[in-house]
């Protein structure tokens, strides 16, 4: 089985990384650098691919973020739900696909399938490594925005499908949810679809995370910063 390295020593040393098929909820308050943490965790390592479903940033901004995290942009695909609203004539390419807004779950699902098929076919980047099944890191930034456009029940069903697809293709999925914006019922419903939860908190301008759901890794809070796409733990 493939293991997705995280760059977090506590996880990588204890388990070798996240198992293929893992779905992870990143539960964090606003202004906690969670996006950077997500980019660090979904940055494709050599031989891997990343697909970002972006509800908050344009495709170009997502690519910039990945590049500054040290990723090779040829292995990153973006499903952009922002740009087409203001520029209806924007056309899909192999690595950038667009839907009008986060309401269009049909479009999002189809574009995700297209990207995964191209990765499997070896036609995605032109620089294929040959690993099979190809390791794919998938990120939704963020579930909170999707929840503003669709009802919780519908989104739960949609995420159920997406998490199942991630398992089927032996990928690794990260889903960002704002911990302050939704009630306990919403959070616990979304948690049900996940294998692992990483919680983030901010105290006196310092960021902390804890990991829940991995056997052998304790759920203590760790102070962290992000430096050039790497998670750096404070001693």
């Amino acid at each position: 089985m493939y293991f997705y390295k995280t760059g977090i020593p506590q996880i990588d040393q204890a388990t070798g990384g996240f198992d293929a098929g893992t779905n992870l909820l990143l539960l964090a308050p606003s202004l906690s650098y969670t996006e950077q943490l997500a980019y660090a965790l979904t940055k494709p390592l050599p031989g891997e691919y990343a697909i970002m479903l972006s509800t908050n940033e344009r495709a170009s901004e997502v690519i910039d973020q990945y590049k500054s995290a040290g990723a090779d942009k040829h292995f990153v695909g973006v499903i952009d739900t922002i740009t087409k609203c203001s520029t209806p004539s924007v056309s899909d390419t192999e690595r950038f696909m667009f839907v009008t807004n986060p309401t269009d779950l049909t479009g999002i699902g189809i574009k995700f399938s297209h990207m995964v098929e191209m990765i499997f076919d070896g036609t995605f980047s032109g620089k294929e490594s040959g690993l099979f099944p190809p390791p794919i890191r998938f990120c939704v930034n963020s579930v909170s925005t999707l929840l503003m456009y669709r009802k919780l029940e519908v989104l739960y069903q949609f995420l159920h499908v997406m998490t199942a697809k991630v398992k089927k293709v032996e990928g690794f999925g990260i889903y960002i949810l704002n911990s302050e914006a939704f009630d306990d019922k919403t959070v616990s419903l979304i948690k049900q679809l996940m294998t692992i939860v990483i919680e983030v908190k901010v105290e006196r301008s310092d960021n902390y995370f804890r990991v829940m759901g991995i056997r052998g890794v304790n759920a203590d809070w760790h102070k962290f910063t992000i430096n050039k796409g790497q998670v750096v733990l404070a001693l």
Partner: protein
Amino acid sequence: MISTGMFGIDDMLGGGIPEGSRVLYSLEPGVDGQLFMISTLYETLEKGRSCLVIIPHTTVDAFLHDIGQLRGKILPAKENKIVFLDSVDRERIQRCAGKGSAAEREWQVRIKKLCTENKVDVIFGYFDVIYEDFGLEKGLALLSRACCPQESTIILENLNFEGDTLLEAFAARKSFDLILAIKSSFRPLPHFNYFTIMYTSWSTELHRSVPFLVEDGHVVPYIPKIVVTGPPEAGKSRFVANATELAMSVDRTGLGGNVTTVAMDFGRLHWQDFDITLYGTPGQPRFDPMLPVILHNAMGVVLLVDATNHGQLTRARNLYKTITRMHVPIVVAANKKDLPGLMSEEEIRKGIGISKNIPVFLISAQQESDVADVLESLVDSITRFIY
């Protein structure tokens, strides 16, 4: 009749969709099935009919660009009889009337007004957002003949999270005249898409599933692999050559001057709107290690035997056992019916051990019409097969 814009599907439906019907294209999440409704929309407009398109999830400009990109052909809205209710209308309705019964009434008023003013023949609607806004029953009522002109045809696309349970309930309640489900599977091929005609109000014999490809903006029913196998010198290469438009065989001439297949036969054909690929196996037992490779992911198998050669039946029986383990549709073709010493169908069935539900055809592979009969039967079995 309204054409679906997919002529193979029109044929399966008995000519198309009867006017005044209510149709559901149900999409499994992630399946590339948007072209089904778009094909019907393009065809309807090309026939000069007037359409209302309800797109609560997107704007008119984005929708026209998207469908133009999918179809490979821009739809000039101004040159066609087409009107829209889009996400901007939805937002306006929500701002003015919220999401309750006042909003429902406002949708009804707008639909009726547009239908009357533009003499709309066909209403196309993306249902899942309406479903979410008003619930299933009220959403269905909004896009029913109670709210739309009596004579209009209503065609809906729905992103179906509830699976076959919802579709079976629709069929039981006769909510639609046609339910076509578009799904995907990982077997027999990864990322394998197919559609199923789940229900029609005008026939009980149309329940069938067909794989499809999207090619150049069109939905093409597709059978990626039919394998023709059988004992040596049964006529497999001739069968593949006569069945297909483009065929190739990897042969070798033996010491006795007889030609035998040493790798495989290969051929492609476009038949009754289907794209089909045929693979023929070598018949000699020494090539048996290749059989699993060629049979892998086959969607149907033709077992071809020489109907004049009793000595081949044991070999045919062994091959039959191999292919029945694959659980795919099988047709047996007994070749060389025009030669003396022909066995009867009963003898062949008994000699090979063929079960009653598998058809046996007595054919001459030299005759293209005989070959076509075998293919027609197998394609029919494949389309009825539940994946």
